[in-house]
């Protein structure tokens, strides 16, 4: 039996989206979802549709900007890119996440 996929913790998807946009430049929702799936080795349970809630949330906070454009294979799509305040947020979120992960690692290793 294969182990069940990981449910995403609250807020982790937003961080993944920010990181993806920082690494890849402007990308549409489908591209972001694919990239996260690939990097996570398909271990994350992600309904690709949920990514749009994350995108609209990040956009309202001004951390990403979206613009309609045309994809390589001539499909209309909305392309997102990270803003300057988004980069700042990514830095803060990343260090918060790393601290949390380190603490969890230490606590779970204790006996």
């Amino acid at each position, binding site marked *: 039996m294969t182990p069940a996929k990981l449910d995403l913790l609250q807020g982790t998807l937003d961080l993944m989206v920010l990181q993806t946009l920082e690494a890849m430049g402007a990308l549409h929702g*489908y591209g972001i979802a694919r990239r996260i799936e690939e990097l996570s080795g398909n271990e994350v349970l992600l309904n690709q549709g949920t990514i749009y809630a994350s995108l609209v949330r990040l956009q309202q906070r001004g951390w990403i900007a979206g613009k309609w454009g045309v994809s390589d294979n001539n*499909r209309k799509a909305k392309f997102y890119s990270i803003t300057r305040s988004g980069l700042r947020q990514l830095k803060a979120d990343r260090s918060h996440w790393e601290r949390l992960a380190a603490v969890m690692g230490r606590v779970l290793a204790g006996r």
Partner: protein
Amino acid sequence: MSAVKHGWARLTAIVHRDVLDREFDAEAQSHIDLAVDDCVRRGMPAREARRLAHLKFGGLDAARQQHRDARGLAWLDGFLYDLRFPVRALRRDRMFTLAATALLTLAIALNVTVFTIKEAMLVRGNPLAHESDRLVYIGSSRDGRWACRSPPSRPGAPRPRRSRPWHTRAAGAR
């Protein structure tokens, strides 16, 4: 500042609900198209590709609702939505709405009137009530002289200062 901007964005999202819903639908459609293209390019039959694309996207209605919850104020959105039904019902039944409004208007007006009178008489009361030693009765006695005395005080109240009849004081002053 960014919190204000964010709050404003969420508030206007409710007003622009239809526009934003259409935007989401367009994005979802574009997402499915891109996914199908992707699978077909990797050699999947178009039918299978479409099925897989929808499967991976998940429920469209659920995603749309998530989109709404993320961008707006869910409670206000729900409240406005709930408000639509009674408003529609009231508009349908004009006579009932008119009668109910008239009745409510009368009842409120009556309440306000009664309350105003009662408040003036009972709550605000006599402005001198807390200085009862300055309150006097003035009257004339049968022999034509003026007299003045304090009202009878309640038990326990401080003894009024001026309890002498007016004319005696006036005589003393002269």
